């Protein structure tokens, strides 16, 4: 079904970013416009999701050039749900940033760059053309470069240096893979490639381009052994920026991997085993890393790495149940990881530190907030009936079905280590008697904030916790959607047909 309105989420973000650029030093207005724009974006995303849920895949061709000649934008159920979830966490970060960021001069450009980043993220969810996807990726990384160097202190710059170098390298590998695909098939339209790639006789070259995609996307996704930039850089920026990075950036990589590999390269025994092995090592390495950290944000960064393994493992197993589990985990992970970094920001604002050693006593002093924070923390671990539990159940089911026993073992170990790490956070941050807090002159603690700012801290955390609860308690409904997505991904004939012929 052709529908030009599917571009609205991107257009809203673009207009928002451009308008904010002209309001250079009107911070209050910037905050309001950003929140308003993201609310509008969320509403549009919701209607887009409903429309796709009822009417099926929607396509638009840029400039009315028919596929495969023009640039295709396509929204299927997977894209629509990703757009919805990303808009949700975008809105949450928008509110959180309004509440948490001080009125320093460096704040002036945060909101425009943030909206450009959101635009890139939403764009990459609906790209139906490989090169277009590359362009959205570049947009994401250049906006994220701007955000990660934000503040421009020495620590930010060091984190940024690693981040920038590895991401530039990843883009180059990604475009090399695109060049290979173009050389073999003579087209860039993803649906068109999917029909032509199976007729290529030189299977080795196809495998090589699959590996190039895997390494290029793997750096962005932070899989073993390409993840070292992530724990080295994600703990340096402000909490609001960490939240959007931790929640969305690596997940764009996972989304693209699921999309590209299910369309072009799978099922293929070689790639499946490569992906599964990498997933197992990612799970174990991330879990080990998270276990020994003594800094809240570093621990959460390592957990991002660890939990990427779940989704990649689902792709490697490549059965309907496992893919559904991976997709479910993707939804859950975006919400929870965004929330975790916001929680770390809240804890920092209350106590003045990210170090586990210096924290403590939160339960005694803030029982209500502790109860709120418990929801994302235990969702992350996957204590039933919270949202982390169901995708893991599906993944383990998928592992039994496909006979990937090592993957099941790794999933279980990673889950237990997550439990251990969160238990450590719980004991150190909430139960322990707090050490004496050193007096810090320029630190505005949570108690000094105005009421609006306090709401800006608490409201997004509560909202995302509610979404987590919904994903957990409404798991039956979410599972139906994930199963539908998994079937769509494994049998892409309909996706291809809608794009290439344009009819419903």
């Amino acid at each position, binding site marked *: 079904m052709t529908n030009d309105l599917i571009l609205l989420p991107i257009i809203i973000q673009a207009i928002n970013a451009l308008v904010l650029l002209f309001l250079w030093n009107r911070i209050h207005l910037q905050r309001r416009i950003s929140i308003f724009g993201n609310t509008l974006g969320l509403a549009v995303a919701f209607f887009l999701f409903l429309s796709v849920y009822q009417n099926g895949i929607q396509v638009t061709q840029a400039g009315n050039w028919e596929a495969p000649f023009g640039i295709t934008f396509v929204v299927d159920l997977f894209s629509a749900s990703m757009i919805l979830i990303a808009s949700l966490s975008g809105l949450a970060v928008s509110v959180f940033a309004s509440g948490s960021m001080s009125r320093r001069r460096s704040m002036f450009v945060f909101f425009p760059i943030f909206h450009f980043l959101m635009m890139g993220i939403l764009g990459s969810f609906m790209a139906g053309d490989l090169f277009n996807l590359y*362009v959205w990726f570049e947009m994401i990384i250049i906006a994220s470069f701007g955000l990660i160097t934000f503040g421009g202190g020495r620590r930010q*710059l060091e984190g940024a*240096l690693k981040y920038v170098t590895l991401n530039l390298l990843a883009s180059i590998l990604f475009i*090399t893979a695109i060049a290979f695909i*173009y050389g073999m098939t003579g087209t860039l339209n993803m649906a068109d490639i999917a029909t032509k790639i199976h007729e290529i006789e030189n299977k080795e070259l196809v495998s090589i381009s699959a590996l190039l995609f895997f390494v290029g996307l793997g750096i962005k996704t932070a899989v073993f052994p390409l993840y070292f930039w992530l724990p080295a850089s994600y703990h340096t920026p402000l909490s609001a920026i960490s939240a959007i990075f931790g929640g969305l950036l690596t997940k764009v990589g996972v989304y693209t991997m699921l999309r590209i590999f299910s369309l072009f390269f799978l099922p293929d025994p070689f790639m499946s085993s490569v992906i599964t092995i990498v997933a197992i090592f990612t799970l174990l390495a991330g879990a080990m890393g998270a276990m020994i950290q003594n800094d809240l944000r570093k621990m959460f960064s390592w957990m991002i790495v660890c939990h990427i393994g779940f989704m990649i493992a689902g792709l490697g197993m490549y059965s309907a149940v496992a893919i559904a589990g991976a997709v479910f985990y993707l939804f859950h992970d975006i919400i929870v990881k965004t929330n975790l970094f916001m929680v770390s920001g809240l804890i920092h604002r209350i106590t003045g530190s990210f170090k586990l050693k210096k924290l403590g006593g939160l339960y005694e002093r803030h029982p209500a907030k502790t109860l709120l924070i418990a929801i994302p923390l235990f969702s992350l671990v996957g204590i039933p009936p919270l949202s982390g539990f169901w995708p893991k159940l599906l993944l383990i089911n998928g592992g039994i079905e496909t006979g990937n026993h090592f993957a099941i073992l790794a999933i279980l170990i990673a889950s237990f280590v997550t439990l251990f790490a969160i238990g450590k956070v719980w004991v150190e941050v909430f139960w322990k008697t707090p050490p004496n807090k050193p007096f810090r002159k320029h630190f505005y603690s949570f108690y000094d904030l105005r009421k609006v700012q306090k709401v800006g801290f608490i409201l997004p955390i509560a909202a995302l916790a509610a979404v987590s609860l919904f994903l957990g308690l409404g798991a039956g409904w979410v599972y139906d959607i994930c199963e539908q997505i998994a079937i769509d991904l494994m049998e892409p004939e309909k996706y291809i047909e809608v794009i290439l012929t344009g009819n419903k």
Partner: protein
Amino acid sequence: MITVLAFIVGLMYAAGIYLVLRRSLVKLIIGLIILGNGANLLIFILGGITKGHPPVIGSDELTLGEIYADPLPQALILTAIVIGFGLQAFAMVLLQREYVLGGVEDLDSLKDEDEDEL
């Protein structure tokens, strides 16, 4: 022609990766630039190099008659060059700031130092 270009692309990738693996910040950025240009040249070759006419359909014809050059890779490279240029400019400024602020010239001295206060 295509063989020569293929070797040049290989050489550019090799040189770029070698430079990225060096410890100096300046060599790192030069390596990334060479790698990016190598990727652009690769797209150019993989589009197929033919000696032909520009892909313009004459006013009295309906299709392209003669052998023509594929215009798509050129459009892609143009986009990739512009994007790459922006990113490289950013990376250079970043490295310069890093050098000024941190006094770091050797990548090995970049440590993930544990910040005590924040």
